[in-house]
């Protein structure tokens, strides 16, 4: 009892200090010099309307490469852990089959969801979103098929090949930037008119690569999880 009261007191004190700190930060104004620079010069320098994706892909492109690598490592590690489990669970459970309505409707929704994911990552420099949400939407489309079809599967060789090709595309674009413009992941294409689909240099290319990579990685992960629950 005294322990719980002490914990509650601690939470209240931390809450008071946090609220007092956050109350002094103005809402919606850039606080730092770097943020002010990005907001003032971002659209003019790079040509992308959505300043967040410009920062993620161009100003901080190398960090994004690291994030993609971390996701790849996580998926590979999970695959290795699950590969040890797979032999033990050989006994066949009796599963309830999916109903006819579910099968028919998900077959209809699957291409539309994939198309929506492609829309999200191609329009990353114009609308919110980008490579990561687009890839997750594509993986969700595959999850839909996994849930509602018993025998449907994503072959491991296809997901692995797609993932490797997308990752290589990302690095090759960076190396072309190093050769043409002087530094790794530098923009080497024309900026175009801000607001058009074909603008913002290499942002759509890189986001397409990231979208394919994240989508195929997560699909492979779901396929691994599915094989272990058989």
């Amino acid at each position, binding site marked *: 009892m005294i322990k719980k009261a002490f914990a509650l007191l601690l939470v209240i004190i931390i809450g008071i200090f946090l609220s007092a700190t956050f109350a002094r930060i103005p809402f919606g104004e850039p606080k730092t010099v770097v943020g002010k620079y990005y907001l003032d010069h971002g659209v003019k320098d790079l040509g992308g309307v959505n300043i967040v994706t410009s920062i993620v892909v161009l100003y901080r492109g190398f960090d994004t490469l690291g994030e993609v690598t971390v996701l790849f490592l996580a998926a590979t590690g999970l695959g290795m852990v699950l590969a040890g489990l797979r032999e033990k669970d050989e006994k066949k459970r009796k599963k*309830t089959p999916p109903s006819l309505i579910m099968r028919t409707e998900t077959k209809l929704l699957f291409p539309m969801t994939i198309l929506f994911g492609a829309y999200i990552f191609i329009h990353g420099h114009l609308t919110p979103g980008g490579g990561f949400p687009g890839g997750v939407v594509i993986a969700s489309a595959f999850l839909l098929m996994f*849930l509602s079809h018993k025998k449907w599967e994503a072959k491991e060789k296809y997901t692995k090949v797609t993932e490797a090709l997308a990752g290589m595309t990302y690095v090759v674009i960076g190396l072309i930037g190093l050769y043409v413009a002087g530094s790794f992941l530098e923009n080497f294409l024309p900026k175009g008119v801000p607001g058009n689909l074909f603008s913002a240099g290499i942002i759509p290319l890189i986001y397409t690569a990231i979208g394919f990579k994240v989508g195929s990685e997560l699909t492979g992960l779901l396929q691994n999880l599915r094989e272990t629950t058989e």
Partner: protein
Amino acid sequence: MSWVIAIAIIVLGVVLTLIRAMLGPTAADRMVAVDSMTTITTALLVLLALYFKRYIYLDIALVYAVLAFVATLAVARYMEGGL
């Protein structure tokens, strides 16, 4: 003023479904409430996009409309023993 009434009615709906999701006796009750909450929230997001006057905010409502039912489907398949 007309904004306030429309948004308040919809938020009241979200609150009612959330109360049912917190109270619900069985897991199925809670999932039904969550499913309705996502639909009501999609409408709320569309309306708030008009309130903020930002066209790009409609994308988030679209993501809600497309993806929120995947969770419902997964829970349903778990409950009938097909996962």
